[in-house]
């Protein structure tokens, strides 16, 4: 399964005198199995781009191809796209509405027209993926804690079993423990089921640690599409866009400037530790 965007642009309000593009001429291909991070300053067009990816917004120019088929062609069932490309919105807990958690998670599979047994089977699987066990099935989603609500809402999209899962800042507003747990679950999903992940994030540390591909947006354009290692080499350019590199990158550059012979393209603290020890050992 692959999703291809071909020179996609979107203008929200074409009536305005000088219309501003929210997404400007972006081309990229997403595949099942990969883990991509999407970063960009607030207002750079990330959220618009992910809504184009799952067909909620129709680009004003360009095409979206699902396995080579134009999804905005007449007669193409957009529901197919939404089933294969799942999108978890920012603060997804605000979309919960059913009486019980299980029923709410069943909403997606139900809309796919699955029989009731399969709906529940999928819902239970999705709930256990996000760490909510049988005790939660009959609880009202409105009684859960903030973190649990978030998990239940993510399960609601997971239950549709998408091939590619896009998460728009899924960790916003969670405590550090909740963040790490959630990201670990997303990684497990990627590794075990081969689900393609697009993680929209503000945290450079998170995308550096989890993503194998990094998309960087600035002023509605896609400026980098590379491995995190290569992208963070451009930390000066990133800063000009109001972004940054993970803090360890700065540490390594500072060490290098003081004469320690270290590699600067590290991504995590663990990696930096090894690299510094190696450099010191050689001295």
């Amino acid at each position, binding site marked *: 399964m692959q999703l291809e965007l071909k020179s996609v642009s979107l203008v929200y309000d074409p009536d305005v005198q000088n219309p501003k593009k929210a997404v400007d001429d972006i081309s990229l291909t997403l595949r099942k199995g990969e883990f991509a991070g999407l970063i960009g300053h607030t207002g750079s067009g990330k959220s618009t781009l992910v809504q184009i990816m799952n067909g*909620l917004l129709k680009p004003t120019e360009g095409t979206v191809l699902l396995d080579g088929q134009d999804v905005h062609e007449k007669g193409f069932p957009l*529901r197919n796209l939404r089933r294969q490309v*799942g999108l*978890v919105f920012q603060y997804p807990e*605000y979309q*919960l*509405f059913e009486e019980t958690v299980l029923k709410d998670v069943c*909403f*997606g599979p139900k809309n796919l027209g699955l029989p009731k047994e399969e709906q529940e089977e999928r819902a239970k699987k999705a709930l256990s993926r996000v760490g909510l066990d049988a005790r939660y099935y009959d609880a009202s989603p409105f009684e859960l804690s903030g973190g649990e609500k978030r998990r239940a809402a993510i399960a609601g999209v997971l239950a*549709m079993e998408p091939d590619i899962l896009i998460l728009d800042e899924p960790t916003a507003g969670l405590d550090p423990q909740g963040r790490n747990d959630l990201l670990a679950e997303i990684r497990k999903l990627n590794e075990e089921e081969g689900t393609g992940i697009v993680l929209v994030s503000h945290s450079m540390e998170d995308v550096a640690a989890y993503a194998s591909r990094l998309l960087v947006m600035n002023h509605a354009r896609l400026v980098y599409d590379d491995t995190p290692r290569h992208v963070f080499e451009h930390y000066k350019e990133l800063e000009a866009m109001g972004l940054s590199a993970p803090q360890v990158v700065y540490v390594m550059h500072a060490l290098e400037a003081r004469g320690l012979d270290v590699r600067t393209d590290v991504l995590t603290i663990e990696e930096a530790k090894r690299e510094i020890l190696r450099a010191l050992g050689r001295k």
Partner: protein
Amino acid sequence: MRYTTLGQYYDADSVIHRLDPRVKLVFTIVYIVSLYLGNSPFCYIFAGLFLAVVIRLSKVPVRYMLRGLKAVIFLLLFTAFFNIFLSQGDVVFQWGFITITRQGIETAVRMAVRLVLLIMGSSLMTLTTTPNDLTDGLEKGLGFLKVFHVPVHEIGMMMSIALRFIPILVEEAGRIMMAQKARGADFDSGGLIKKAKAMIPLLIPLFVAAFRRANDLAQAMEARCYHGGNGRTKLHPLKYRRLDFIAYGVLLLYLALMIVLKIVTKS
């Protein structure tokens, strides 16, 4: 996304924007009354022209104003429909049980014009007055009611909060709709009952959000020591200026002309 301009503020720097909110309130009330004063075509043409001049002065784009009318188009059609088909009088068209009378058409047109002018006239007030100013204007303009223990300040506050919440809730509704669509919800197809049922996943989160926001707002207000209007002083107290008196003069002139028109065109 569904978008309404009804009751919203349009930021611009114009004579109308700079008027005292009390003037605009009185203006709006008098204008509405004047629409019910005369009922000859001349009266409406005059009222329409007057409104057109004020809109021009306000620098609010006409297209923006018309967008506000979209929200009430159903109401317009509804009243027009009943007036056309259910009025008695000289028959101009008859087919089966459907009869259309001259009087019916006349009333329908008159009502439609009146409604359009009424809505545009009153939305011009909210378009050119910030919610804060509007509250201040209401509070001061109706201040005399305090003698009768009417909580004027609170009513003004509630009104301006309600207006302020419209765009927030519209945006929230759009966001929830998108989120449910991403879960495969279908808001567009099916019959009336299916469509109504499809609204549940939208409406429940929307209500929850409205309560949440109301609660947040109440807490934020309390955190700033808000305790109603008693003993509250203003940073910018309302004060009539030359422009405001001129506006009142124009209003009086308009009203006088309208009355003259009514008397003249009656015979």
